[in-house]
């Protein structure tokens, strides 16, 4: 079904989406979206939502199941604390993407902003994956507790590094992969180990990159032909020694 979001307040738009989901709709097309927040928020069913225009903040927050495809840019807090499902952004996405996410996938074609992938965590079969096609700004993967972050730098801003400063502070679980080199001074290098991606890493990466390439019509082989760098936490207790016994 198609919903014209033109002039609709987010509360009304989302009520209509929820209604459609409850009625068993399989696919919902949103036209003329212009900054409406919370699209897909808390939806717990497998439904496809196509967003035409620019959705507002907290797209797919707390969601568990839907596939939301944004045919353009997205704003802040995409996939906030999401539990499952897929979010695809064909343009850039803003700050605080995938905060506290516990499952599902976020695929961003372009760049992302600050504080991305903070406190991602894995639980049993739920391993969240966030793939950024371009570059990421500061505080990437802070407090990361699980899951996988991939930064490809394919279409990044010219002259910009893959990632900003303070990457992986307090990281104590999960993996971060960069396509290319990362300057240790940009990371919390006392919390993480930085190494060239090995065989095992590449095997894991392949699946994510292939899915990413399929989604955006790119060549996975070409992307994978470049050397990758892996960041893993040095300890599961980054602050264990801070306190007096």
């Amino acid at each position, binding site marked *: 079904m198609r919903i014209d979001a033109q002039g609709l307040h*987010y*509360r009304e738009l*989302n009520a209509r989406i*929820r209604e459609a989901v409850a009625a068993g709709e399989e696919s919902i097309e949103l036209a003329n979206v212009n900054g409406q*927040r*919370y699209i897909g*928020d*808390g*939806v*717990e069913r497998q439904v496809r939502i196509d967003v035409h225009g620019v959705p507002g*903040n*907290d797209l797919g*927050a*707390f*969601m*568990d199941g839907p596939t939301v495809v944004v045919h353009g840019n997205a704003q802040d*807090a995409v996939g*906030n*604390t999401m*539990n499952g499902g897929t979010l695809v952004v064909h343009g850039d996405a803003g700050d*605080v993407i995938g*905060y*506290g996410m*516990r499952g599902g996938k976020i695929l961003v074609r372009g760049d992302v902003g600050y*504080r991305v992938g*903070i*406190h991602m*965590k*894995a*639980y049993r079969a*739920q391993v969240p994956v966030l793939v950024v096609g371009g570059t990421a700004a500061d505080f990437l993967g*802070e*407090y990361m*507790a*699980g899951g996988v972050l991939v930064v490809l730098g394919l279409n990044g801003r010219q002259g910009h590094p893959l990632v900003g400063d303070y990457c992986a502070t*307090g990281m*104590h*679980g999960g993996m971060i992969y960069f396509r290319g080199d990362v300057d240790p001074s940009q990371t919390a290098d*006392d*919390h993480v180990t930085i190494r060239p991606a090995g065989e095992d890493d590449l095997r894991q990466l392949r699946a994510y990159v292939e899915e990413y390439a399929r989604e955006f019509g790119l060549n996975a082989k070409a992307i994978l032909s470049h050397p990758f760098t892996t960041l893993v936490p*040095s*300890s*599961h*207790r*980054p*602050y*264990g*020694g*801070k*306190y*007096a*016994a």
Partner: protein
Amino acid sequence: MPQLDLDTRDALAGAEAEFAPDHTRPRADVVPLYSPPEFVWRNDTERCRRCKRCVMQCGWRALSWQDRVGADHNKCVGCHRCEAMCPEKCIVVAPNPQHYKPHALWSVTHRKNVWKQGDTGGVLLTGMGNDAPYQVIFDHLVLDACQVTNPSIDPLREPMELRTFLGRKPERVELDAGPGSALALKTRLDPNLEIATPIVFAPMSYGSISLPAQKAIAMAAAECGILWNTGEGGLHEDLRPYAHCAVVQCASGRFGVHAGYFNAGAAVEIKIGQGAKPGIGGHLPGEKVSLEVSQTRMIPVGSDALSPAPQHDIYSIEDLRQLIYAIKEATDYAKPVCVKIAAVHNVAAIASGIVRAGADIIYLDGFRGGTGAAPTVIRDHLGIPVEIAVAVVDERLRQEGIRNQASLIAAGGIRSSADMAKAIALGADAVAIGTAALLALGCTLCQKCYTGRCSWGICTQDPELTRRIDPLVGARRIANLVRAWSAELEEILGALGLNAVESLRGSKERLRGLDVDPSTLDVLGVKPAGVGA
């Protein structure tokens, strides 16, 4: 490089390991200075029947058995569990009479802390609420009573209304003519929580406290018609039957948080801060993340549960509004959203912002609020008392004409029904109790919760210890406490000539200050004793 013999090489390797940045261990490469024990343990060996029960009861393993009970005084934290369980009642745990020369500036505690930090280089931890000797304002406020010119009410004879509704109230109500001569409510009311008495339980997560302790609290809430709070630890499967009276919390670690969790609870609470540790996060060490804790928090077993200091999607009031409405959208506007903050200097302005951001309830946690673990320096020196916070927030919201938009819960050092009545007179709709509920479970305030070895089975995940709490028995004790305070509140209301607790709310005129400095009284909006109406 000259060849080294094996022993020297090993020793050097060891030394290197000590100085390499190792984030898993405290820097214990110093021989600790002597620090005398805080308590000495004694038993009457004549009366001791050698049952060894005390040895088994000590969570901190301070006692051992070699023909008779032997005590490692340094390990004893003074929790008095052994004493309570001794069939002969022949144990005395007393403060160590050993004496350092007194110093008005350098207390023995200050000295011991310096020794310990010289030993370890670590941040000192503690549990429970601020124990520093600040003035307790509650103890300097007295309530009014009716005499001659206005009659008191006898709660034994007359109905008393303690029922309280938490949530946003409309500015005005509009009525429509219903069928016949009846009137129908036209105004759409926001969701409110009905509680039978103005008490709720403070958030204490499963992880910081044991499952039987949390279950006892949840059962007591259900029995008393009030609310309990999951804290930041998710909702355990066994507590699902008590979800209808649970406030489910969403904090910076987002542990166990998902849409189903929000919808299971009666209300959702966004935790910004905690009175015992304003402005900082929390670390539940991996060793406390057992299989069950892991299922509830939805993180792997043994993984550290780090709650960052801020919620990284909230850096401003606008961001808070965004999360409040993200939760309202996820719950289809059916649940009130509460925002919990620590009482800090600018609390009135912050609370005003929180109401404008769309919160339905504000939970104000004063600097005496409890905790499972906090750096001592933070607990004892940051924040302000709840008495002041609740008075200034109530006043500010009234001045701005938005007091109806949110209810206020006062927490952090509510020790009795008197504190509750005074907090309500200062402007609270209800109070939250955490420490008092744990005391009802047996806690003796030894303040060692952060060690996870609580002999009373409260702040621990060790099954040997947690099974000491029978949730049914615990629930009865806690429910008794709530009942007792409610009955006392009715007595107080009767003496004040009131028949509903809402008539006391924000009624600062019914309070007077004794031995409080005038500027504090001014801030509280309370007159000194002896000044009439």
